[in-house]
């Protein structure tokens, strides 16, 4: 099987860009489809909603948003039901003489014929994910490859084996594979296939069929000047610049809030026990004061949970998007380079007649490359925009949910205190 021939994709090479009807480009019309088509049996536990405006059912907020995280419903716009499901779970620590590391279980369920078996379960470590991503970037340079969580962690600052760190990483790796699995081109990449199914990833060998001329574009570094960037790609670049900025600001705000909340928590932890020691030398006020101490303690725990959740769930997703944007900017640069190469070669042909000028077919190939790149990129951009919208809707709704849960816990604590505080009063009032 040739590398990456998708069932319904546009990298055809010969048609001009106007003739290419890219299935992914029909964003708005696809969104109005009925919801029923998209609930594949495998997902089955809950009703999921679509990015067509139907809001997520958040009556039980915690469970539905975490479930969404796991299933990552995507808008499969080409009309096919999903036939490839991937999850990352079950982190385990491995200790060998040379090193200690974590592996994750990668489970695949699929009906695709490109896979020999319908189910796979393999163990992979971060290195393997990194290898996969590099291979994808190499072999599919015209596409946006989702980001991985940060590779390096400062030893001594972050505990690589702490539960929180491993869980955060697992979620990010899970998201990464799901995004690849949902991509109409990337999901058919043979390296992805190998990653999911091979017992041992022999990373050094690599797979034979790699860079066919029609498929991949050699990355040309520098040397070509770009004449005019098409407006839509310039707009993409501008958008990404502003968006990165805003994400950075949001990250800083979130961090600041977490810091203030942590320090407030510290004060609360000093404050509550004072009521306890007060109650120790009071008679009638003993129970009310103990009650208040208990309440403050409950609120402290609730605040602790909120702060932890924000650190573990909110910040990593923001940072992931910043990485995503970085890689997207790189792809835009590559596109510029491809276009520049084409323009330069075209110019040479037009203005020169000697032997040194490139052969017209060479120029045609360049033109093809440009058109393919543009088409792929545009399709991926639209898909990315939709995913981004969903992701952020989920992220921000999740943030709101966590805060609501925090206040609800505190409310319950204080409300249950009121009858305790009033109790003796009524009894005394009656005896009077």
């Amino acid at each position, binding site marked *: 099987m040739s590398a990456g021939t998708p069932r319904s994709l546009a990298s055809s090479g010969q048609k001009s860009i106007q003739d290419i009807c890219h299935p992914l480009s029909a964003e708005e019309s696809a969104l109005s489809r009925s919801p029923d088509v998209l609930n594949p049996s495998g997902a089955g536990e809950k009703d999921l909603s679509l990015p067509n405006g139907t809001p997520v059912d*958040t009556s039980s907020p915690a469970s539905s948003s975490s479930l969404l995280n796991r299933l990552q419903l995507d808008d499969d716009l080409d009309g096919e039901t999903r036939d490839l499901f991937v999850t990352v779970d079950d982190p385990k620590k491995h200790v060998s003489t040379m090193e200690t590391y974590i592996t994750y279980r990668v489970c695949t369920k699929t009906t695709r014929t490109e896979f020999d078996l319908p189910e796979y379960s393999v163990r992979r470590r971060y290195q393997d994910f990194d290898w996969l991503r590099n291979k994808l970037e190499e072999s599919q340079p015209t596409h946006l490859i989702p980001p991985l969580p940060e590779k390096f962690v400062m030893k001594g600052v972050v505990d690589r084996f702490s539960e929180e760190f491993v869980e955060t990483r697992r979620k990010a790796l899970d998201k990464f594979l799901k995004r690849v699995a949902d991509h109409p081109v990337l999901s058919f990449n043979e390296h992805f296939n190998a990653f999911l199914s091979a017992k041992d990833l022999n990373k050094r060998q690599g797979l034979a069929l790699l860079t066919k001329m029609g498929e991949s574009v050699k990355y040309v570094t520098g040397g070509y000047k770009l004449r005019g960037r098409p407006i839509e790609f310039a707009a993409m670049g501008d958008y990404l610049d502003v968006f990165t900025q805003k994400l950075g600001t949001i990250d800083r705000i979130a961090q600041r809030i977490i810091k*203030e909340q942590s320090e407030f928590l510290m004060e609360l932890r000093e404050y509550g026990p*004072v009521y306890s020691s007060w109650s120790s*030398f009071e008679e009638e006020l003993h129970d009310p004061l103990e009650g208040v101490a208990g*309440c403050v303690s409950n609120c402290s725990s609730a605040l602790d949970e909120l702060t932890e959740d924000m650190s573990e769930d909110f910040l990593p997703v923001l940072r992931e998007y910043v990485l995503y944007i970085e890689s997207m900017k790189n792809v835009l640069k590559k596109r510029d380079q491809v276009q520049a190469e084409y323009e330069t070669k075209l110019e040479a042909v037009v203005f020169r007649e000697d032997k040194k000028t490139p052969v017209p077919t060479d120029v045609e190939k360049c033109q093809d490359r440009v058109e393919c790149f543009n088409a792929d990129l545009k399709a991926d951009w639209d898909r990315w925009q939709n995913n981004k919208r969903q992701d*952020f809707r989920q992220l921000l709704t999740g943030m709101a949910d966590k805060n609501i849960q925090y206040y609800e816990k505190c*409310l319950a604590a204080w409300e249950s205190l009121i009858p305790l505080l009033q109790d003796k*009063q009524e009894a005394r009032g009656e005896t009077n």
Partner: protein
Amino acid sequence: MADSGSEDIAVIGNTDLTPSESENNLKNTMVEKGTSLLKRMEISVAEAEKRTGKNAVNMQETYTVYLIETRPVDAASEGTNPVPDSLWRRYSEFELLRNYLLVTYPFVVVPPLPEKRAEFVWHKLSADNMDPDFVERRRVGLENFLLRVASHPVLSSDKIFYSFLTEENGWKETVFETGFQAKADSRLKALNATFRVKNPDKRFAEMKHYGDELQSVISQLLRVRAVGENKVSTAENAAQSIRKSPFSPTKRAADRLYGVYKVHGNYGRVFSEWSAIEKEMGDGLQSAGHHMDAYAASVDDILEEEEHYADQLKEYLFYADALRAVCRKHELTQYELEMAAQDLTSKKQQREELATGTVRTFSLKGMTSKLFGQETPEQREAKLKMLETQIEEGEELVKERNEECDEFVKSAWVDIERFKEQKDHDLREALISYAIMQISMCKKGIQVWNNAKECFSKM
């Protein structure tokens, strides 16, 4: 208790109480307890004003005066609303009144005044004596003081107190005419002296200890909220730290809470900026941003209400001091009794020695008489006679002091019991309103975040 600005309805079980209603409840409780004064007269500290004038050393100074209004109770209920009688007093006059009461009724736990200078302030802004928030809270505190005195079974019938409320001019002179100053000075000296009582009254010792602990714990509460420094272990340290500067380098809990809320306002701005580059997401982001702004703004009300709670605690912090003063006074009374009794015993012993000629105890006289010869019979007679008179006087003194002591113990204990009941009631009410305030804060938080969530879900 003092009123608060919030109009929120608080739900306690089946009853709905607004803050002004609970204030009325307190006033009604005071009236029901039935001092004749409050049955006749409505008292309030209605306003505060700034004045400038020359002080004792002929220098310009700015000070605040407070308007005390009194109105006969019947008039209000008849439906006519006559202009109340009123006069202006400054803080120092309140202090004078209180000092007079302290000296004149040493067995009473005298209600405290609001603090002179702004210490233990939670909210950043009310730190200055001239600051309108501080003045307002002081006005409320002074009114509370007057109501407490007016509802006290003993203090309410005091004439000086009555004229404080009704006679603007010449009141100061009237107070000084009572001669309480002299008593005040000697009382102060005695209280500050260190002395030990041989047979301390267990109940009073316990009460004093309670006062110490109460003061310590409340100042811890106020300082964790306001200063957050090292914990206070003894009452003396507590008193000292009360006088320390409130601006500690350690950040306060209230500051932190303020920070948490206010930083959320930054979300408002960045969401707005972000929405500018978005198509479908723009509206949702923009409106969510507005809710974040509302959330940030809500902290000001919250902190104001917490300040109110702090004021309630502060009153009892200072009440603890008054309680300890009564116990200390009792100690003094007991000590003086013991001194008189001791003196009497020693005089009686001297008489016995002189009469029987035996020297039981070592004395300089005894030694000198041994060394320099015995006294003449006439000298001994004279001495005996003198001793007899002294013993008579001494017995009178002991009897007097005994009665004093008993009287003091009786009346002080009555007032202490009254104080205990009042304290239990008031602090319970304070805790209830604190809980209600927390509930209201949580409900507002839930509402704001639900609004924001709705906006996010429409993104």
